[in-house]
């Protein structure tokens, strides 16, 4: 009821995502998944596998910055799903010393999301298929995923590695959350280096 009242008053719930990224090469991925299984909650269970399609929508705004939204559906394109996941992420704040921070708002919606976004003036920009595994450690979410580009025949892999993401959402300015993300990232250090995107780009001279 509290959330309902704040929605009635027109307040925006401020949420941030604290996250770090890294990558692991395909041949050693299975070994890495076993390590993660040991580090995360419920090691006796198999990791959660998922296959999702992400649609990136863009709205060009003549008076301000463009707005991008990400919609996800379970399954690859021909499948029809029951519901969608809609996500807004802001630009990344690199000023924090430990992890990357960005504003984050998400919600689950009914399956007619596409119509709604089109009515709002959003255009479909690109489409990705994401296949991966999900782990939990307390509030932390760890995702190891491979990104494919959809094509008429078989989805094409974009690289020969898997993306590793550690993330956690919470109210802005929570250094405790940032610390826990960083601590978990340090545990993976011998196998995968988790870093900020800006740092990786700097080292690669991009």
């Amino acid at each position, binding site marked *: *009821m509290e*959330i*309902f009242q704040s*929605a*009635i008053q*027109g*307040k*925006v*719930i401020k949420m941030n995502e604290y996250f770090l990224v890294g990558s692991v090469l395909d041949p050693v991925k299975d070994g890495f998944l076993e390590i993660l299984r040991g580090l995360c909650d419920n090691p006796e269970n198999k990791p959660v596998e998922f296959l999702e399609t992400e649609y990136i929508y863009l*709205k060009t705004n003549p*008076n*301000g910055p463009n*707005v991008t*939204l990400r919609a996800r559906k379970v399954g690859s394109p021909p499948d029809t799903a029951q519901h969608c996941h*809609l996500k*807004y992420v802001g630009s990344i704040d690199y000023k924090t010393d430990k992890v990357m921070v960005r*504003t984050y*708002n*998400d*919600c*689950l*919606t*009914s399956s*007619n*999301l596409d*119509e*709604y976004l089109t*009515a*709002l*003036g959003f255009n479909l920009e690109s489409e990705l298929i994401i296949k991966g595994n999900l782990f939990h450690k307390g509030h932390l979410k760890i995702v190891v995923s491979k990104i494919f580009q959809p094509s008429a025949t078989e989805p094409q892999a974009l690289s020969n590695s898997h993306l590793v993401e550690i993330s956690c959402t919470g109210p802005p300015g929570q250094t405790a959350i940032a610390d826990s993300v960083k601590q978990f990232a340090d545990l993976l250090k011998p196998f995968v280096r988790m870093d900020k995107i800006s740092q990786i780009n700097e080292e690669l001279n991009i």
Partner: protein
Amino acid sequence: MPITYLFKLPITIDQIPQFRETLEKRIQSLKPRQLNQFQVQAVMFQATSQASIQQFLHSDFSSTCFSLIEPQSSSHETKVLTADIGLASLQRRILDGEKKALQLDLIGSAFKLGDFYIKIGAVTQNSSNRGLLIEISYCASNNNDAYGVIIEFVDSHLGLSNSHEMLTSFVKKKQPHTNYTPEDTIIQYYEHFNSMRSQTAQIRSH
């Protein structure tokens, strides 16, 4: 899921407080169970030059946010996107700065009487009255049964005649065998709110 019908009383704006009291007295005399106050809010966002959307919040569905895409013409079907309450925040974030045309609020009292839920509330815009609505829900197995029973309830217990005329065209057009969904309630609110808006526009133009 109870089937809900929404009635708009054909009275002038100055009759609202008095009429509301009379109706509540009539209900009270049936010794109902008084429920918590109920609340409905509609906010209109002008998304693009052609399209606008309306965000509906209803205290009966306190963790859901409905977003209604206004049909381009009356021949189009009205589409509703159903999402969790996070959409209210997300919508404000992506559409803030867009011109907000209007906000209508409805606050009223709710009663339970056997299988019936009765809600009486006044619609306000910037704290001035716009109209009086009665929402009646009945736990029936199909639309056809509910229609007769609800109309009879309104005629006999609330002492209103011609109650069929107070329904929206959406309800009148709805096929009797189709399932009733919460979206149908929202579309009824949308149509009644719309008629109240055009009413006020008429008064002003006179």
